[in-house]
């Protein structure tokens, strides 16, 4: 029987669709880590903020998240920029320890703040696109919202890659990543570039949240699992490598999907972490990266 092949293929396709969203979350984190060596524990909370922002706008206007996601991106860019300027810049130069703690504290404030404002209930939105499926052949079907989200995520991922590799800003950001002491001597405004990088990284999380809203439940702690996954992606891709994180996102999506298929949904996250520990202990520079841990 060829049936199992179709099932596996379907799982891989689903994995890639999820993976594209993971990829932009991971790229945002990788940008932040690469330029600032900051492990941002508030990344998941930023994603959650993007989701709630989109949810609020959707409830008020009824505009589909697939049109209004730039709004969440803009909001989170500002939040990220302000976070860097207000909270992270004053403690620059202190050990990673303090930065991790600070972003953890920020995440607690945002998550519990959301709980205060919106309550702990689960929310879901309904758009007409959700009921549409695209069939490829007799066996394989793709849920339309995932496909749209995939397309948007792919475009954004390419755009982010282009910004980092081709623009002056990207060059400055990479220079800081390479050597934070020499970069200012070359006339780079380190503070501004880092703040913008933090803003862009946060915006990526916010947009991912926006795109996830139609296909996911919304609740204050929704970001936690994505935060943990973004750590896995950043390590897998090589800390600070943006394209590495993007590939790692796709890999993670497929691995999770196949794990769910063969072992059950509840093991997917555990497999993520086992993969993470294996990579950290065997090849800490990441599968796709060249930097040393």
């Amino acid at each position, binding site marked *: 029987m060829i049936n199992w092949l179709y099932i596996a293929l379907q799982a891989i396709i689903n994995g890639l669709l999820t993976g594209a969203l993971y990829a932009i979350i991971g790229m945002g984190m990788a940008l932040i880590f690469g330029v600032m060596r900051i492990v941002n524990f508030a990344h998941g909370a930023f994603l959650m903020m993007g989701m709630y922002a989109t949810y609020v706008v959707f409830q008020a206007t009824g505009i589909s998240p697939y049109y209004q996601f730039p709004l969440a991106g803009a909001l989170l860019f500002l939040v990220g920029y302000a976070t860097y300027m207000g909270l992270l810049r004053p403690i620059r130069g202190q050990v990673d320890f303090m930065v991790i703690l600070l972003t953890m*504290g*920020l995440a607690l404030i945002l998550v519990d703040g959301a709980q205060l404002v919106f309550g702990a209930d689960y929310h879901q939105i309904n758009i007409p696109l959700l009921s549409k499926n695209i069939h490829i052949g007799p066996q394989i079907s793709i849920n339309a919202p995932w496909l749209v989200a995939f397309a948007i995520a792919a475009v954004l991922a390419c755009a982010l890659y282009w910004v980092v590799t081709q623009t002056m800003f990207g060059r400055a950001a990479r220079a800081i990543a390479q050597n934070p002491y020499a970069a200012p001597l070359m006339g780079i405004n380190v503070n501004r570039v880092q703040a913008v990088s933090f803003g862009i990284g946060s915006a990526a999380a916010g947009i991912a949240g926006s795109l996830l809203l139609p296909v996911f439940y919304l609740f204050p702690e929704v970001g936690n699992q994505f935060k943990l996954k973004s750590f896995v992606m950043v390590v897998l891709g090589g800390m600070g490598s943006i394209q590495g994180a993007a590939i790692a996102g796709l890999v993670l999506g497929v691995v999770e999907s196949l794990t769910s298929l063969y072992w059950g949904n509840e093991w997917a996250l555990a497999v993520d972490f086992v993969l993470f*520990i294996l990579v950290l202990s065997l090849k800490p520079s990441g599968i796709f990266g060249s930097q040393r841990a």
Partner: protein
Amino acid sequence: MKNWQALVAAVFLFAALFVPLLVPTDYILQILFRVFLFAALGLAWNLVGGYAGQLSLGHAAYFGVGAYGLALFSKLGISPWISVFFGIVLAVICAAMIGTISFRLRGPYFALCTIAFAEVLRLVAKNLPNVTGGDVGAQVPALFTHSATRSFYWAGVLLTAFAFALTAWIERSRFGYYLMAIREDQDTALSVGVNAARCKLWALLISAAITGFGGALYASMFLFIVPDQVLAMDISTEIAIVAMLGGAGTLLGPLLGSVILESSAEIFKTVFKEAHLLIYGVLIVVVVLFMPEGVVGTLTSKLGRFKKAPLAPFAAPAPVAAQEETSRAALNE
């Protein structure tokens, strides 16, 4: 620790032991139990996170293993206190495995790795319902049947006293100085012959043993545990925050941190309901921004006393780091 300091500590210990005779309600005693429990956990974490400077964010692993050890071994028919012992042994074995792998990593990589291990344990506990009861939970035997709340309180006080005495001793021992040397500069410590890997691992094993016992006490107090409660990242963060809030790498820090955090959490629970973690977040941000050495660390350096106290941890300002970098570059040339 000087003699008069030991005397003060002993007086406090006796005062703490007599508190149950004065406190009328079990409710307050339960809160005080929590304060002492987390003080002990903070002290245990402090050995690894404070003195050795290794930011462990996965102490829930040892906490949860201690808790589940008590639950599962006693299900096999072993008496509770021996199960506690087995649970501690299991926590130490876990620590040995986790430490061996994660201590090879530095900085954020280490922190992330400890999180990953704790999360794997949580997910395994969730997904093996035949062994652990899964999300339904596991029953835990009561360690104290006679006047339980008081007994738990006393156990908490004694555990804290033990962790405190141990820390006080380690702080003055060769081992303690090795740990602090590793924190200040691991490469230099290695170059003068400190076996960093072994020292860090020992610190973690001791820490895990105390944390495991704390987990067993906590579990037995509630009589019932689920993975999302005892193996959750919230426990890891709470333990780390207790120590860092009070002052990582100081003897009194975790005690003070636990008093501040647990009491404020209790007060704000009535105001914010489920969102009471908000106050944790605010406290963390305030401490990191304005008192990077924790409450105790900042006070002692402000007062300028306790000259023999360990160097303020984690407060290397940027210019120093920059100098280091350039001097290192100069050495390379």
